[in-house]
């Protein structure tokens, strides 16, 4: 079964800490994405990557950076965590080729981050 695995299900960090959220996919997908989800705001795209070492900003990249050194791994980095970054973070991947249809996203289970 295809999988997107997020390393931490729950994290609690302090303001100013550097936070790493790791995501690994085993489907050989070209594209990987990071979203955050907050009540009433739905899923918002932070960053995405369509190839190793490539990255593109989504709608809310401020305060975040990403790293994709290997095809299967996409990391979200909070350089200096703040309380307004408390949220559920969701990683997803998709194939770069459409096959018979548009790209279909496969999501991880999510990482709930609390910044105190």
């Amino acid at each position, binding site marked *: 079964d295809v999988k997107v695995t997020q390393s931490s299900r729950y994290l609690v960090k302090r303001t100013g800490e550097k936070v790493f959220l790791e995501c690994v996919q085993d489907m050989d997908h070209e594209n990987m994405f990071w979203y955050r989800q907050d009540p009433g705001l739905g899923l918002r795209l932070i960053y995405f990557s369509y190839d190793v070492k490539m990255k593109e900003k989504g*709608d809310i990249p401020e305060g975040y950076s990403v790293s994709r050194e290997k095809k299967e791994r996409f990391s979200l980095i909070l350089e200096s965590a703040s309380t307004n970054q408390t949220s559920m973070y969701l990683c*997803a991947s*998709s194939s770069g080729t459409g096959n018979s249809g*548009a790209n*279909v*996203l496969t999501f*991880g*289970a999510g990482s709930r981050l609390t910044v105190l």
Partner: protein
Amino acid sequence: LAKTTQPISMDSYEGQEVNITCSHNNIATNDYITWYQQFPSQGPRFIIQGYKTKVTNEVASLFIPADRKSSTLSLPRVSLSDTAVYYCLVGGVGYNNNDMRFGAGTRLTVKP
């Protein structure tokens, strides 16, 4: 960028058929329509995808009229476990980051 509009919430009862409509007036020629389901504290998961007319799989049907400006996700005989948020995405073949933006979704509540 094809923007989508869905009802914020819907209620239903067990055993009923539920239809959730998504409006996408500026859908492009090569755009597909994809629906996802999300349970609390989980990531969304793919339900169904279509381009035109009707698509059916083991969990749902997707109806797309000829003008493709809307689509309807149909869930037959819902159960309590179908309580979730349902998202409609519109996007084209191949990669485009604009395809991967979610709207607010429809929160479906199934009552006993």
